[in-house]
């Protein structure tokens, strides 16, 4: 079990590292190509790019929280209030990301005076993923707290 948890931890680190490299190398290139295709919006290139980088901080914080949870699982502290709190924090961060993207979408829509389908699609994807993550983490927190209660009852049953 510990072996699989360690493997999963490395997978998370690898994915986070990979996405970081992509965000530093591919994202500016992609943003520039979009700006080149839509020259009327090229003034939005750097604001949108910096906004995306800023929202990545939230995602990387979530990755750190996931690594903490996996660390708790490794050290046999999976069914604790601390782990439940970590899940709650991930749900909160997912909510913050949704709010950030909705505000970003509204700001961009006001700037270009229309709701661009590309931005609607990006907003839909991010909101859907974050909502799913938020729901999952809230359920996990609720279940973990129930398990902690049951475990405590079991520990105090002679």
């Amino acid at each position: 079990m510990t072996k699989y948890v360690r493997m999963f931890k490395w997978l998370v680190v690898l994915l986070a590292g990979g996405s970081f490299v992509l965000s530093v190398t591919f994202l500016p290139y992609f943003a520039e190509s979009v700006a080149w295709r839509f020259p009327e919006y090229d003034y939005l290139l750097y604001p949108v790019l910096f906004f995306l980088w800023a929202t990545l901080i939230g995602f990387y914080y979530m990755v750190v929280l996931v690594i903490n949870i996996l660390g708790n699982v490794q050290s046999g502290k999976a069914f604790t209030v601390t782990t439940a709190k970590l899940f709650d924090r991930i749900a909160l961060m997912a909510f913050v990301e949704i709010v950030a993207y909705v505000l970003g979408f509204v700001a961009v829509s006001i700037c270009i005076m229309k709701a661009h389908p590309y931005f609607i699609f990006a907003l839909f994807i991010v909101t859907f993923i974050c909502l799913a993550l938020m729901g999952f983490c809230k359920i996990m927190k609720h279940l973990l707290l129930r398990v902690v209660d049951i475990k405590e009852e079991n520990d105090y049953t002679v």
Partner: protein
Amino acid sequence: MAVTVKLEELLKERKITAGDLAKMAEIEPAKLSLLKSNKAHAIKFETLDKICRALECQVSDLIEYKE
């Protein structure tokens, strides 16, 4: 809680240590300690059976209800 376990008194009466009872009744000393200090939330019938058998007593000798 109004329900208390009189294990400490019972052990004093019988002049037996908690460690001895743990061995006689085949109960973990840590669990017995919980029972002795009245910190336990629940007792299994199995545990009651083991303690009563080891101490040759009734359940009423072990558990008391005080208002």
